[in-house]
């Protein structure tokens, strides 16, 4: 069954909101920030802008929330506001996906153990280090009394979240589901990225290089969507397909095929197959940075393009000879397909179609 994408919210290195997202996509590639690590090395990153999480409108409700929970609350609240729907609290569900979850607060808790000892640690830090703390905040701030789930895994967490959201809608358990993903770039995680992956010398991710050892620039952020059984006043797209399987070309070539190559997969040569599917191609990781759970941000870009019937130029095209979207221009777009690969060879697909 079709689900309708009725609203979206985003807080990422592009800033907060869809206007900021549009500007960033129009701008294309921009240089990453450079952060100095404690061991003296540098790391290029795409972090949230410093004021992205400033918001006093929630008052005390999020006073203790950590950065990850704040991102999720702001993006989810924006999605709900964007939809202009007042759901029955018992008929709306929530699924939060993350690759690394509340790692930063987990390390903060380990710090508590080292500094104060096991018997004198902060209960607030502990309770925020549990993986579903962000979801708990979103649920209590937005009064979500239906099913609430958190899925934490490096690969395809958001795709599984979408599958679950669709099942809740299809089964009639929910009228709406807020579904999204969030990942932050804490201090220890930066050290891990720097140690495990190499950064591109010129600060550009190259999604169309299909490299065996791609470069990566870590990003962070959150995007949420209100998925519903029926279209609302601000419906921007229909979610036609979510599939997790081996790569199989879509039955009808989409108006645009977004490849989610972003440097987080050890070997990106597998993206050559979906690239050869014949559809026009784009890849927006150079705008957001590398994120194993980056699909929500890419989906936000896709939804924006469908809503505004515009194709944003792919930011780092390279000279692959592939049929790329090279110029930002108004474009009739009936559908957009997104493909992300797993290191085991499977692929996850989402297809959105335009909703008039």
């Amino acid at each position, binding site marked *: 069954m079709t689900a309708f994408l009725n609203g979206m919210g985003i807080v990422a290195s592009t800033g907060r909101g869809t206007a900021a997202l549009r500007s960033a996509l129009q701008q294309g590639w921009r240089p990453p920030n450079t952060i100095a690590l404690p061991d003296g090395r540098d790391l290029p990153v795409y972090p949230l802008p410093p004021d992205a999480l400033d918001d006093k409108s929630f008052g005390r409700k999020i006073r203790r929330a950590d950065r990850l929970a704040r991102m999720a609350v702001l993006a989810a609240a924006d999605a709900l506001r964007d939809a202009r729907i007042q759901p029955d609290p018992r008929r709306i569900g929530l699924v939060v996906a993350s690759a690394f979850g509340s790692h930063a607060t987990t390390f903060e808790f380990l710090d508590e153990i080292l500094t*104060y000892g096991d018997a*004198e640690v902060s*209960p607030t830090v502990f*309770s925020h280090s549990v993986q579903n703390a962000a979801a708990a905040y979103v649920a209590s701030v937005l009064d979500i009394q239906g099913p609430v789930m958190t899925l934490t895994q490096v690969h395809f967490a958001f795709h599984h979240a979408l599958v679950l959201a669709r099942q809740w809608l299809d089964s009639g358990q929910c009228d709406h589901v807020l579904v999204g993903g969030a990942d932050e770039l804490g201090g220890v995680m930066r050290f891990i990225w720097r140690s495990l992956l190499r950064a591109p010398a010129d600060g550009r991710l190259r999604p169309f290089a299909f490299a065996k050892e791609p470069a990566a620039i870590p990003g962070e952020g959150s995007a949420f969507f209100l998925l519903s059984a029926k279209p609302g006043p601000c419906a921007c797209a229909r979610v036609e397909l979510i599939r997790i399987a081996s790569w199989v070309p879509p039955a009808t070539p989409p108006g645009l095929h977004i490849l989610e190559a972003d440097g987080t997969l050890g070997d990106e040569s597998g993206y050559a197959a979906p690239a050869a599917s014949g559809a026009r191609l784009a890849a927006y990781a150079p705008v957001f940075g590398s994120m194993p759970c980056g699909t929500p941000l890419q989906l936000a870009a896709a939804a924006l393009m469908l809503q505004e019937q515009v194709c944003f130029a792919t930011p780092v095209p390279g000279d692959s000879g592939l049929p790329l979207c090279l110029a930002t221009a108004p474009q009739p777009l009936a559908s957009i397909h997104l493909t992300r690969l797993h290191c085991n060879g499977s692929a996850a697909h989402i297809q959105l179609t335009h909703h008039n």
Partner: protein
Amino acid sequence: MNHTDFSSEELLPKVRARLKELLVSHLALEDITPEEIGDDEAIFGEGLGLDSLDGVEIVVLLQRQFGVNIKETEKGNDLFRSINTLAKYIVENSPNPLGVPAAASEDEK
């Protein structure tokens, strides 16, 4: 100056002030200043409106800042009723009722 330079009566307002600062900073009470917290204002429920998670966090705060360990049996008492009752408990039981100096506690965060 050391806390032993003060009498209990002189200590109490200093302890109350320090306690208010610590509650505002450690519990992220962004909407209130220490000066706005009443001495006899209820800490939980109506009043300062703190919750159960703040309650257990205050227990840890008292351990770290003032070296007092609240026993399980004391938790239900009037001890946590207001800033005043907490301050009195600290003056009566703490080896350093003025708390860890502000500069040192900023370094912790």
